């Protein structure tokens, strides 16, 4: 079984985001970009399936600018087998991503697609679900455990109040949650080897997909600043202030 993992290049989670002065977006100048953490988890899961003999090949795909190839190389350094870059400098929204991924799925015929539950830049949480709808495949979102059986998968999800286990027929879409696994390091020997793994370059037009945005961003703003706290001398003052100033008691 082939496993397909889409990976997105996003601002590294350690970077403090700054909004551009003209409020049109986020400042990306000289900012470290990395693989979306949920996608790292998906790549890790796919590699573990391969190591366990459940998968035969791990293919990663990224949609984005030329530099997204670096994100693919990271996945290859972790242990994926080959990459596909669908190169575009345009903004690609979740529906267009899902359509492009459908094109890749049609071509590659994977038995399983593991998608991050969301990307940490736009937090859309839509791509996996849309892809499942476009393909007419089953979906299990927010997976915390994936067990591959014979032509089926059992996926555990963390839901309010406990764990829910779904059984799906393959092929299917799984979206990964934080606790699915802990991604491995891309070690130096593997980083060096990844340079030689195949990476195919495509364009959105190759899949006949119109990626023009359907949503318009009106304004991007910083969240309101939290004002500084105060220290109170004793419990009595605290209770007093909670009553009179905060109005919560």
């Amino acid at each position, binding site marked *: 079984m082939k496993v397909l993992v889409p990976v997105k290049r996003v601002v*590294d989670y*350690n*970077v*403090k985001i*700054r909004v551009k002065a003209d409020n049109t977006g986020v400042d990306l100048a*000289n*900012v*470290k*970009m*990395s693989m979306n953490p949920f996608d790292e988890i998906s790549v890790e899961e796919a590699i573990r399936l391969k190591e366990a003999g459940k998968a035969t090949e791990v293919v990663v795909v990224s949609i984005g600018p030329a530099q997204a*190839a*670096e994100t693919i*190389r*990271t996945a290859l*350094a972790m242990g994926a087998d080959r990459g596909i870059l669908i190169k575009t400098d345009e903004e690609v929204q979740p529906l267009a991503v899902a359509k492009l991924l459908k094109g890749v799925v049609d071509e590659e015929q994977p038995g399983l697609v593991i998608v991050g539950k969301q990307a940490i830049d736009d937090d859309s949480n839509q791509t996996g679900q849309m892809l499942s709808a476009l393909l007419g495949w089953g979906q299990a979102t927010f997976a915390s455990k994936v067990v591959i059986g014979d032509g089926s998968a059992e996926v555990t999800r963390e839901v309010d109040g406990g764990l829910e286990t779904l059984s799906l027929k393959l092929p299917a879409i799984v979206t990964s949650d934080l606790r699915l696994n802990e991604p491995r*390091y*891309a*070690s*130096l*020997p593997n*980083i*060096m080897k*990844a*340079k030689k793994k195949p990476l195919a370059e495509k364009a959105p037009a190759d899949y006949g997909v119109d990626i023009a945005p359907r949503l318009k961003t009106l304004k991007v703003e910083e969240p309101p600043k939290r004002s500084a706290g105060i220290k109170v001398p004793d419990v009595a003052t605290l209770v007093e202030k909670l009553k009179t100033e905060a109005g919560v008691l």
Partner: protein
Amino acid sequence: MTEMPVFDPLLREVPSPYYTPAHREFRATIRRWVDEHVAPFVEQWDEAGTFPRELYGKAAEIGLIGMGFPEEYGGIEGTDLFHMIVATEELARAGSGGLIASLMSHSIGAPPIAALGSDELKARVLPGILSGEKISALAITEPSGGSDVANLRTTARLDGDHYVVDGEKVFITSGIRADYVTTAVRTGGKGFGGISLLLIETDRPGITRTPLKKMGWWMSDTAAIHFDGVRVPAANLVGPENAGFLGIVRNFNGERIGLAAGANAFARVALEEAIDWARQRQTFGKRLADHQVIRHKIVDMAQRIQATQCMLENLAWRVEQGDAPIAEICMLKNQATLTMEFCAREAMQILGGAGYMRGVKTERIYREVRVNAIGGGSEEIMRDLAARQLGL
């Protein structure tokens, strides 16, 4: 999440002709590895005067130990000085030079073996070193002197198919824990033409090792090693007899670039600690960072670090092109250690009393300044060599 770290080469990706995506990937890997396996334990290890031996194996797994060595012995080919710079900078972030000195002691002990050793010797010792199972050290310095390498006194006399080694080495990094010591010995006449390199296994009879206590680099073990009639197979000779001086000198450019990378990285760690503090600490009704004197200190530190970094990267690049800019590398080493010295001082001033307390990186860095300015070619020797290279 703190303020944008202005000088963090990982999070702030400025355009550079020197670093490929693979270098940056490697940086991210080591950053994560250091955060997980090193940084939380540095205090404890330094106070204990040692770190777990398992760390060598863990470091080998992510590629720290094998870089630059041949693949057939477990190394990683295709790396360059920039991988080494990246590795050094990231290891330095944990704030302990002693860690780098010992964990990476093979980076001075093993290159002569890889470059000059016989195939048999390489196959015998390199795989163990490069997998992190065995520890490799380099022993040149003697009680009678370290700068004047050409006049070293430890002798190795051929007796059948063995050398018999007599003498003493001092200040040897990893000397206590090392399994293999690449040792400079006198096999011939006076001067540099009588020196050979001999690989000595430390379990041979006649070797006594004494740990030395130091001003800094606490977690790195440093030893005096005494050789008393130690019999070493002639097959352990590294390169031709009496040509050891070349093997020693060959090491120097890479070692000094590494030392410079480390010194400047520690300067940057001190700077970052000082900036963090200056942004939080309030005196006379405003942040330290709002006092002009402190702002200027910070900029002065940053300016020197940037200048050193430019020199470092440019010289590393030249060496990669096959150039041997010896005088410039000597100047680079001094530029870097003087920058470290300046930044350790200024950061300590900004941190005030807090900076003098254990548990602050700057406190440790301050104590590690001098070893950088003395080891691997002292400041005075660097100036002297540069002057001679310049034909003065």
